[in-house]
């Protein structure tokens, strides 16, 4: 048997260039899975959260139950959440997406509702005076004005989802979490560190991206402050 080469892989170093170059495809696949899991779940959360928040705003009595249910969902631990959904979805990516979507729901509903509630009554009355119906009032006035608060919630939900997705490794769909989990069992330092750093980088990049989007879609918040 040929002697093992004396490189950073065999020495099991934390930072290893050879790991990066030889496992590029594995890392790329994990990053793609991570992005898919988080973006899908946050989008799903958003699709459910907007109507819930609008309903809670329209009918005051609905706000209490909606907030209570989403808050209880948030207290369920991620590991437990995935396991509670297990009978419904089995060991699948849908399980992780559903779990993460339920988590983002709390933050999103709270923030969108706070944004809608902060729309000044005079603004709503002015729009009504201009002949805006309820639907147009909602779409053209209330929702745009709630955007800054909603975007703040979206940023928190996205960053949390990126970090919580790693726990999906328990069912084999954790994106970079899979690499961390496997690296833990095989004591593979370079893999654990690389995957962890990539995870943080994705979270920071997503946060900055959403911040950029927020500035683009709410130009009035900048001129108002200047």
């Amino acid at each position: 048997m040929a002697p093992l080469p004396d490189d950073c892989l065999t020495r099991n170093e934390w930072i290893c260039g050879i790991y990066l170059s030889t496992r590029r495809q594995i890392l790329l696949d994990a990053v793609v899975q991570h992005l898919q899991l988080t973006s899908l779940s946050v989008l799903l959360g958003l699709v459910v959260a907007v109507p819930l928040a609008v309903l809670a705003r329209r009918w005051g009595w609905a706000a209490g139950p909606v907030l209570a249910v989403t808050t209880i969902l948030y207290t369920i631990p991620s590991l437990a959440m995935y396991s509670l959904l297990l009978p419904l979805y089995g060991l699948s990516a849908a399980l992780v997406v559903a779990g993460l979507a339920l988590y983002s729901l709390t933050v999103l509903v709270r923030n969108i509702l706070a944004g809608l509630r902060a729309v000044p009554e005079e603004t709503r009355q002015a729009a009504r005076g201009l002949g805006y119906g309820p639907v147009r009032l909602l779409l053209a006035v209330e929702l745009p004005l709630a955007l800054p608060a909603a975007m703040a919630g979206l940023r928190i939900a996205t960053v949390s989802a990126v970090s919580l997705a790693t726990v999906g490794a328990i069912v084999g769909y954790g994106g970079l979490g899979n690499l961390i989990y496997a690296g833990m069992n095989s004591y593979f330092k370079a893999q654990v560190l690389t995957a962890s750093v990539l995870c943080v980088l994705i979270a920071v990049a997503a946060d900055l991206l959403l911040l950029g989007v927020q500035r683009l879609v709410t130009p009035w918040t900048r001129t108002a402050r200047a």
Partner: protein
Amino acid sequence: MSTLAAAWDWLTDPAHWPGEDGIRHRLLQHLLLTAVCLLLSCALALPVALVLGHLGKGGALAVNLSNAGRAVPTFAVLVLLLLTPVGRWDDGPTVVALVLFAVPPLLTNAYVGMREVDRGVVQAARGMGMTGRQLLFHVELPLALPLLLNGVRIAAVQLVATATIAALAGGGGLGRIITAGFNLASTPQVVAGAFLVAALALAVEAVFELAERLAPARARGGRP
């Protein structure tokens, strides 16, 4: 529905309660782990937050730290620590990872609480000749207490929930029931474990809620 019934049967089976892997032992481990981590993170975060809030410095640090903390997966921190010399110490990695996880929200809430104290009140106290120390302990801290305690409550509930990931790294606590269930492919056991953790998180939330109701009006943020 049969899964839920099976989970309930697993949970109420007296054979699953005693012993090293029993529910009772895991529950105690979980509570102890959470309590130790909560105490440690409070001991670390609160003095810093109170001093920074009193001096009115480091606000950007306190708030940004909390946001940055969310981006770092606790699971990754746990595994990273496990592979370092800290990993040789039994529950070391778990405790360090959980403390790192709980410090940012505690720090931010306490800092914000201190800064939200009415500046007029602070100036009046100063005008009455209070020293910095008196101001901190007799004016700012009591007024900041509701927000500060809310931070402790959030941290406590999140710690109960997050402590489950210790099991992924071979640590103790209720997470072990879940991971053992996964390894045995026993869905009822997994669901039973998840139920236990969720119930514990809600119980902690309820304890804080109760303490808040029983506390003097000042600590609730109400006007005495």
